[in-house]
């Protein structure tokens, strides 16, 4: 009887899981799924792709999108050397802040900018550019986690979404197949050869999007690999310990159970 209870509960939970704790969108836009190196229990980052993706972000996306949660020093996790990180940081202008975190202003009240240091967070996009836009471009640090199936969503939106709109589409609005409501504020940001990769990889649109998704997955979840590594050790340890505990339990209970039917 209890087994039926268990089955009912599990069935309910599974259907709940399928529905997802996050509710279904207005209409289910079926996302094309890609295979990613970081998928699954043993997933890891493709560092080469993430480095290229950083280049895509830095050269193109950073014009409008901030990446507030990443500091230049974090780039060393992607395989950049300390010297490279210093150079990347120094190539950007960041707001000079005093030790309380307040922006430093010069005598005329204007905020002072200075070259970045590795300990700085990424530079903000130019306010002159972003304030002229019709909508505020969201920060991208967590976009791969802030959307359902984020990595596939970002890929689909950038690489496949700027499709031909349906016949009745208002031509003054930009259409994207995978953006909720389809009315996206951002025109297609990437094209073939929008960047020239430092490692010589052919910069097709698909490649650029793949790489930037790899990068954004890292920005959203930099601890993924450590989490998987530690998790494997922990679960194996727990399985071993539970087996020992089970054997101990059986032993301890043997004198009770031998009197029972």
């Amino acid at each position, binding site marked *: 009887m209890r087994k039926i209870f268990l089955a009912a509960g599990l069935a309910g939970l599974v259907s709940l899981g399928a529905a997802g704790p996050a509710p279904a969108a207005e209409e289910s836009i079926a996302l094309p799924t890609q295979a990613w190196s970081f998928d699954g229990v043993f997933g890891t980052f493709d560092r080469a792709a993430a480095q290229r993706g950083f280049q895509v972000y830095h050269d193109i996306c950073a014009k409008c999108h901030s990446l507030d949660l990443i500091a230049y020093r974090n780039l060393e996790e992607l395989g950049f050397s300390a010297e490279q990180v210093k150079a990347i940081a120094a190539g950007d202008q960041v707001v000079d802040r005093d030790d309380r975190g307040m922006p430093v202003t010069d005598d005329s009240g204007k905020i002072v900018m200075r070259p970045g240091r*590795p*300990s700085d967070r990424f530079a903000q996009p130019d306010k002159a550019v972003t304030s002229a836009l019709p909508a505020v471009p969201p920060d991208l640090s967590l976009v791969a986690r802030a959307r359902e199936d984020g990595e596939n969503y970002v890929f689909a939106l950038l690489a496949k979404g700027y499709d031909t709109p349906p016949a009745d589409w208002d031509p003054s609005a930009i259409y994207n197949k995978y953006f909720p409501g389809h009315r996206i504020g951002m025109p297609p940001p990437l094209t073939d050869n929008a960047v020239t990769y430092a490692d010589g990889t052919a910069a097709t649109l698909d490649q650029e999007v793949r790489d930037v998704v790899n990068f954004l997955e890292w920005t959203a979840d930099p601890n993924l690999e450590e989490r998987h590594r530690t998790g494997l050790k922990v679960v194996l*340890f*727990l399985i*071993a*310990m539970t087996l*020992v505990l089970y054997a*101990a339990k059986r032993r*301890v209970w043997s004198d009770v159970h031998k009197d029972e039917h």
Partner: protein
Amino acid sequence: MAETAQAKPMGAHGGGEGTRRDFLVLTASALGAVGTAAVAWPLIASMNPAADTLAAGAPIDVDISKVAPGMSIRVLWRSRPIFIVRRTPDELKQLESGKDNAELSDPDSKALQQADYAKNWHRSIKPEILVLVGICTHLGCIPSFAPQPGNTPVENWEGGFFCPCHGSKYDLSGRVFRGVPAPLNLPVPPYNFVSDTVIRIGENPKGSDFDLSSVEQL
């Protein structure tokens, strides 16, 4: 108590069954202890400085090209005030002569308040540039920079640093005078000349591994 069935106390059996049970329970306990330690470790480690705190404590580069002779600037490194002073030739002559050494507690910087490269009469790498941690070794106030001899801040002032809190006096190499509350010279942080006009605070010159936390007292 008559309530419970008599449980056989653990390990009271003879031979096989009891010792096998003991072994299992022992193994389980050992694994449990390992597990508990493995859980406790991240919790305790989390209290160590976080990555961004450590990064903020990294060495900083300071441009001293605009510091005129006789002037000093103050920067913060690891939340501590660092004085950088460009001493005039007259001031250096005065210090080198050792005229006032008798009035100093530790004129030869015997106490460990600086790296070896600062264990000299100018307590620095290059004589003109002095770098000090600006925290009075008495009770932690920040001394004022008073290079001009005269009658301020006290009578017959020869030039140096004066701590307003309890009147401790230091000379223009940060060496403490006798008869004041402060016991030790002002510490010298690790620093290095990256170029003639840029000092990196927090990094030693090649060949030295001086650690600021090794000083007697900050």
